[in-house]
């Protein structure tokens, strides 16, 4: 992979997890590979930060988990977005867009 990997900012991880689950339920590994995929390898989410995030978001009521069968018949815990999670995704997306725009503008300024 040519691109350099970037450390995740606190908060960004939530947004990425929410985004990755927006298309449908995934298990833990699924979430990290989806993030890898949609960021084109920029972000690698390690289990050490992935699981605390998943559980925190579940406690916050954004995610819901349940046990299910994986693609190769393995029992895995799947996470899905709740209604609150979807709302959170909207808010965080808007916030992020505002911030990134602001930062981009700031950086362009002379």
């Amino acid at each position, binding site marked *: 992979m040519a691109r350099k990997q970037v450390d995740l900012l606190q908060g960004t991880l939530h947004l990425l997890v929410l985004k990755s689950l927006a298309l449908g339920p995934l298990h833990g590994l699924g979430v990290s590979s989806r993030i890898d995929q949609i960021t084109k390898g920029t972000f690698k989410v390690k289990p050490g930060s992935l699981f*605390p995030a998943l559980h925190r978001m579940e406690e916050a009521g954004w995610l819901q988990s349940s046990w299910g069968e994986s693609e190769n018949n393995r029992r895995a815990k799947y996470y899905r977005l709740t209604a609150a999670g979807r709302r959170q995704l909207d808010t965080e997306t808007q916030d992020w867009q505002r911030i990134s725009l602001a930062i981009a503008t700031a950086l362009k300024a002379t």
Partner: protein
Amino acid sequence: MPLIPRLASFWRNLFHKDQVEHEFTEELRTYVDMLTETKIRQGLTPGEARRNALVELGGVEQVHEKVREIRMGQFIETAWRDIRLGVRALLHSPVFSVVTVLSLALGIGANTAIFSVVNGLLLQPLPYPESERIVDVWHTPPQHSFPGLDKFSVSPANYLDWKAQSSSFEQIAIYSYTGFSLTTSNEPLPLIGAAVSSDFFSVLRTNAMQGRTFTPDDERPGQDNVVVISNGLWQRAFGANPNIIGQTLIINSRSFTVVGIMPAGFELPREAELWVPLAWDDKERQMRSIHDYLVIARLKQNVSLNQAQADMSTISSRLEQQYPEEDKGWGAVVVPLRDDLVGDIRLALLVLFCAVGFVLLIACANVANLMLARAANRQKEIAVRIALGAGRARLIRQLLTESVLLAVSGGVLGLLLAIWGSKMLVRLGDLPNLDDIGIDTWTLGFTLLVSFAAGIIIGIVPALQFTRTNLSDSLKQGSGRTGGSPMKQHTRKALVVSEVALSLVLLIGAGLMIRSFWKLQNVNPGFNTSNALTMSVALTPSRYSEPHQQLAFLDRAIEQIGAVPGVVSVGVTTTVPLAGGGSTQPFSIEGRPVGSIAEQPMAQTRYITPDYFKAIGIPLRQGRFFSDYDRDKSVPVVIISEAMARRFWPGENPIGKRLTPSFHVEQGAREVVGVVGDVKSSGLDIDSSAMMYLPYRQSPRPYLSFVVRTASNPESLVQPVSKAIYSIDKEQALTDVQTMDQVLTASLSGRRFNMTLLLTFAGVALILAAAGVYGVMNYTVTLRTRELGIRMALGAGRIDVWRLVLGQALTLTLIGVGAGLVSAYALTRLMASLLYGVTATDYLTFVSVSAVLIAVGLAASFLPARRAAKVNPTIALRTE
């Protein structure tokens, strides 16, 4: 996360930790496995793939720990923040907090105390294994002889037939409940105990703690000199001597060998401290019309109460046909043991439980009003928080945390009150202590539940109302008072109205009890209770089985007691009125058809000495009293009560008529020589029934109850009179030593207990309601100060202001009273059986209690009204 799922998750994390942990371990393992597979697919060897995957995972334990923290942390963190905020807010208004906590403590404490009794008596199983299968079996007597009586003791022969023929019981046992006298080095110790058949203990499935209980061998006459003692007696009388088994005790002047000690808490029949075998001889086994015994049984597994009842009814009707002479009209009834133990108390307890619940509701309404007022003062704070982005749910939660904090503090304090209170209740109420009434886990749970419920009740109204605030309005109002919006005032008033209504219901209940009690106290018992002393002795069979022995004891006792200075007269009977107990027997009237014993009329029977009527103060209506010449060789005579004369010789002169009591057929017909006044023998609330008195000397018995009339305070004669009797025989224990006034008082103790408690609760309710009315009126006046000022400026006089304020208070109270009257009308009929001489909807009580409440409502608004009348228009208009 909304509160409920959050609590659920908190619960899961706290109490199902293992499962949560296990799930996460599994989740991680799947992750590693799947990652390994992915890496293998990418071309690594299985070994490398796995190692890589594990490296990527990092420390399993670290990940675990992080997740754990998150799971627990979230909830505790917010809860903790709310609690800290709450405590800080409450410390800001200490007076409010103290008043609230105290009133809730009273309410919750009273509820907990009553619940501990309800729990101990009605909810917890009796302290015997599978106690729900234990039943009492009673006779039902013929209704023409015992109108209204639904349970009657059992005769030996009928019991033996029940035992042989019934198929519903695993075991069935019979016992008699009697007094014993235990000889000690000092005065004999009177004890309550039972003579029991050997199955008695297996019905209860309770073994001796040490030694053994009885075997069928112990039931044989001559081999029955063994005794089982209670744990309490063992400790009290024998200093818990471990070698007591095998020792000999002198009980009723007979030697008994101690064979067993029962475990602590075994107390059946009530207050029993010793058990001896019931050894019937052949004659006793054939007695069919002597009803002297109680029957207890254990239902077979899978046999219902109804099946057992049907079984017993079939057997009874068979016995009726087989022995019409004795058994005609006698049925049987199967009653759960608990119903018998707590029967009379159940309704009273439930009424008290309701009452105390009402008190708590009133206290909650009061506190809710205080909270409303407080929230009104904090409106600006709340508005600022909302403006700063606090969510409504978050605010409600914080306000509720505050109120729950208050209520739980009240609950903790209340629990302390209840520990003391439940002990008081058991003592004052003379309750059967079935299962150590006190604070157990159930009671703790109840208190916790009630505290939380109270917290939510008092917090929810203000929380909902004040978070719905219109932001700009509140902020604009600056430091001015708010909370005066019509809706909030309506809530406040509704709360007060319900307080008034609830306390009216309580007051009416208490009023009805007081009226009943007052009526009862004015019931003439038919004898003179003042300056009279009574004590009883059951002569022990080993020394006093022969009539001449009994008579000798009687003569010496009367002589000795009569010689005590201060004694005016001495009478002897077999049962003192109002003390409970007494025997009833059939009789036939000469010249009228004599039916079988079962068909004969019944009358209560007492055996008395000539001076009895004089000593106890029962008046002669006709004829004469007995004299010393009415003895065994003289003409058999009888004296009857007015009720008996009215019932059997209406419009006739009964004097000179002859009747035969069926237990004394051998003495032939007795001549009625006198008619005396009726007495209340079984209770002031029970109508006097037919009563006949036979001369003790014509048919002596081993049971003597002395009635001693004294010149002055009878209590000072207790000692000398007891000594006089003990000087005759040291082994005959005196029981039931009390003044006749005490007998009368004791017969009302249950009612007095109920009345006192209900009255206390009603009093508390009244005070709380008054405080509620005062609070609301005071607040109204504050809110309307400006308006009042304008009115006065426009020419309204002080009288008008008074009228305005008092009028509003009156309206509130009247609405409350109206609602209360309707509820009371519906509710008091449930307590009808606790009343005497008044109907449950006694209009006098309803009207007078309403008047009291209206007066209190007006009195409570006196101060606010005066304050309103003193409003100075200029100042009022300038402020705000």
